[in-house]
């Protein structure tokens, strides 16, 4: 009985004592995206005019409606990276490592090296404050984290303007993100909650799963992004910015027509995220499919 008691107390104490230490290291490793969620959007890319499930507000919708994919041909846009609230849904590998304080051997920061655009992200765990508002913004932003049991909670600010979906739905530089990194065996789930007071009606919540990949080789990472922009349209006025004037974008109903969907849900908005919206959709007229050529 005494031996059993000792074993129990020891086990309990060891569990308590090792939780933070284990939590500090158990995310380390090479992780690879699984793509079982939203594959058409994440691989080939979203279709023009598909705002389904994004809580985009009127401002974000107008921005997306006037967005022209040719914007990406401008030299200043060709080499842009994805922002941190979007990049984990890309064709991604993530190598998670730690920065250790050599004096105390505690973890100062968790590092993510993301294969997409070779982005490096630092999640500070040392209690440092976020920079002042006027500090530069970056693709990955400035992140601080804390352990909540075995879940890593991360808060990110100072992110550059990017997109919530890469068909023109914008993410503003005022957006902030809260994430939870949760590991179950060989699956790492990232829950991201992006708040964007400029372009979203409600927070955008996403989950993304990654699998531990023990057989990763270095060449599976894009070791360096060396992008040199070129004039893709020779002779074009360098001051030209492609966009659609309000009401002139011919592609906005193409998605609905091709997939036999009513138009309103394709326009997005917070309402379109919730299951009860389906009842409303069932009452909506479906536009005629495009004529066969």
């Amino acid at each position, binding site marked *: 009985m005494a031996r059993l008691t000792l074993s129990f107390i020891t086990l309990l104490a060891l569990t308590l004592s090792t939780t933070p230490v284990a939590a500090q290291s158990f995310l380390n490793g090479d992780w690879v995206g699984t793509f079982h969620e939203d594959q058409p959007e994440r691989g080939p890319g979203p279709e023009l005019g598909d705002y389904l499930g994004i809580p985009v507000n009127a401002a974000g919708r107008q921005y997306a409606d006037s967005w022209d994919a040719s914007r990406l041909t401008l030299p200043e846009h060709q080499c842009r990276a994805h922002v941190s609230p979007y990049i984990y849904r890309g064709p991604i590998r993530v190598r998670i490592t730690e920065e250790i304080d050599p004096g105390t051997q505690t973890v100062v920061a968790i590092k993510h090296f993301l294969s997409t655009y070779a982005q490096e992200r630092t999640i500070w765990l040392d209690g440092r404050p976020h920079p002042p508002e006027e500090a*530069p913004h970056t693709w990955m932003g400035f992140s601080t984290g804390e352990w909540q049991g075995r879940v890593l909670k991360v808060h990110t600010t100072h992110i550059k303007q990017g997109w919530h979906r890469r068909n023109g739905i914008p993410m*503003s530089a005022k957006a902030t993100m809260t994430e939870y990194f949760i590991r179950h065996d060989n699956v790492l789930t990232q829950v991201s909650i992006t708040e964007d007071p400029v372009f979203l009606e409600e927070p955008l919540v996403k989950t993304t799963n990654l699998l531990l990949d023990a057989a990763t080789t270095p060449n599976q990472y894009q070791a360096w992004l060396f992008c040199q922009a070129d004039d893709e349209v020779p002779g074009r006025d360098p001051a030209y910015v492609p*966009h659609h004037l309000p009401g002139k974008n011919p592609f906005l109903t193409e998605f609905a027509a091709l997939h036999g969907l009513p138009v309103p849900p394709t326009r997005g908005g917070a309402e379109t995220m919730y299951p009860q919206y389906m009842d409303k959709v069932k009452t909506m007229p479906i536009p005629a499919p495009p004529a066969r050529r």
Partner: protein
Amino acid sequence: MLKQILVVAAAVIIGALSAHVDGRAQSGAPVSPPRREGGLYTMPVQGNVHVIIGAGSNIAVQVGSLGPILVDTGTEQNADAVLAAVRQLTNRPVRNIINTHSHADHVGGNEKVGASGAPISGRGVAVVGAGTVARAEIIAHEETLNRMSAPAGSQAPTPVIAWPTSTFSGKHKEFYYNGEGVQIVHFPSAHTDGDSIVFFRRSDVIATGDVYSTVSYPIIDAQRGGSIQGVLDGLNQLLDLVISGEKTEGGTMLIPGHGRISDEADLVEYRDMTTIIRDRVQDMVNRGMTLAQVQAARPTMEYDGLYGAAPGWSATQFVEALYRGLKPVK
């Protein structure tokens, strides 16, 4: 035996609690907060260049063994705090002030900050009506001096002692100072008709004045010679000068007249926004719409959450300035 158990258990539990405390503390040197002085604060930007935030406009400070250069001086009421902020960066006297344009939030501290300094020549600076005095040189485009001064017998908008003491009338002025080339480039008829940007070439930092801001639509001071086309030309010229760093961020850094430190990716969003709204208003003007109709169409709508809340320069004012600038004069 029970005693042994309790001793072992107690030791393990104490160890456990200690580990928890360490785990929460996550020790490591915290980042120093920005240095604050009288409500202002300074941040390093890159190389020799720092920025003073909160003085009414952003102030770039290039430091070095020869003494600092300031790009703009903020508002008059913040001048003492600006000097205190500069002293946190260097104990050398201010040698040169470069004014990006004539507005009071950028030149208001000229008098006090200038008086605290001394020119590098040691000969003093010629000031109208005051002979040669020991103070910092104030450099600006000639149109900026014209806007700050007035013909003899008229009331000048700014005191003589705050006027630029060294002007240039061409496209640019350049000199080598504190180990790097300093290039002042004039953008004609942009925010005003006297705009200059200041490029610290080794530091790879550009102080843009009010041609670029992260917190407002482009302010077009038509009464002082500003124009939408001049702003767009200026923004595109800036894009030609900046080179983004590795992974398309950093590289040439920009200190806007107001707002956050930026790089090319931020600047291009601002250029795109300005171009798109210009194109929309131009289209509406071409279709014969009245100003009221253009305002009702809200051509800035999706950008208002980013740029529409600037004190003294609303989206409505911006659209009106565009409309009046783009509508053909009969």
